[in-house]
């Protein structure tokens, strides 16, 4: 059976949004020396079945979207990070040690349906 295409504008589709995390807002500026914050970004938007393939989706997302069309109790595919990158942080601990550490998966580079 043909699956009806929902009417969505492009801006509602799954994509990356800018989000700057300022460590001062979290009170973490008291121990993080650098950076002051970082562009973490986030993913948000609809993942309609008709566009699942074009929205950088996984095969699984396609199958889930297909199943959702058949059975609405199965949730729609969701907009999630598909590529993440690390950041480095310089901070000080309670023993006055200065530490440089790298944290994986802190910045959203790309989004897709999954």
């Amino acid at each position, binding site marked *: 059976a043909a699956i009806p295409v929902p009417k969505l504008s492009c801006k509602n589709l799954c994509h990356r949004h800018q989000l700057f995390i300022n460590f001062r807002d979290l009170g973490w500026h*008291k121990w993080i*020396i*650098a950076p002051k914050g970082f562009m973490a970004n986030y993913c948000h938007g609809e993942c309609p079945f008709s566009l699942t393939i074009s929205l950088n989706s996984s095969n699984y997302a396609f199958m889930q979207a297909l199943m959702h069309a058949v059975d609405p109790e199965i949730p729609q595919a969701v907009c999630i990070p598909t590529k993440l990158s690390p950041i480095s942080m310089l901070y000080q601990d*309670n023993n006055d*040690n*200065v*530490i440089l550490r790298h944290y994986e998966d802190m910045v959203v580079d790309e989004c897709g349906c999954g």
Partner: protein
Amino acid sequence: VQFQEYVFLQFLGLDKAPSPQKFQPVPYILKKIFQDREAAATTGVSRDLCYVKELGVRGNVLRFLPDQGFFLYPKKISQASSCLQKLLYFNLSAIKEREQLTLAQLGLDLGPNSYYNLGPELELALFLVQEPHVWGQTTPKPGKMFVLRSVPWPQGAVHFNLLDVAKDWNDNPRKNFGLFLEILVKEDRDSGVNFQPEDTCARLRCSLHASLLVVTLNPDQCHPSRKRR
């Protein structure tokens, strides 16, 4: 929110949000590595974050530990040329059990490097302290000497490889009684320059700073490097 923060901080390798009393100066090497990685991230160059190119070792956590020891003022000086004695102590408790030590570099900053106002040659002797001592009350006794190095002065920073010692301390924290540093002034009668040892020692006492740079590798976050076939 506090609970969530706690969980996330644990994920970052912290028990709780640190609350340092004052910010320590960031050593040049850490600043350089941080800036290099930031520059690589902005240009989109992917790098192996489990290899510290600048130090030539594998690792994903770099710690700069300040010396928590103290100067010693012995009543009897072992040698006439003895300039100063100091206990060096580094607290390694921040290193988690899973982390593997790949570098431990002792840095002794002997004051600014200079081509002018040349001083006498110094002899740096490092001993392991192998017996417990009452902190600040009894004088730690030097055990086995493991480093003896002559350096011109003023010299800047001198570095020593302490990997085996730090590994031993990390495996057996009770064995960490610190290091005994003795600096001797070598008299150079041939140079014709008459140095005042008291001045040299007083300047050294003011400018001497010790630190331990430790690099560790967390195997949970770094997979073993694959050898090229």
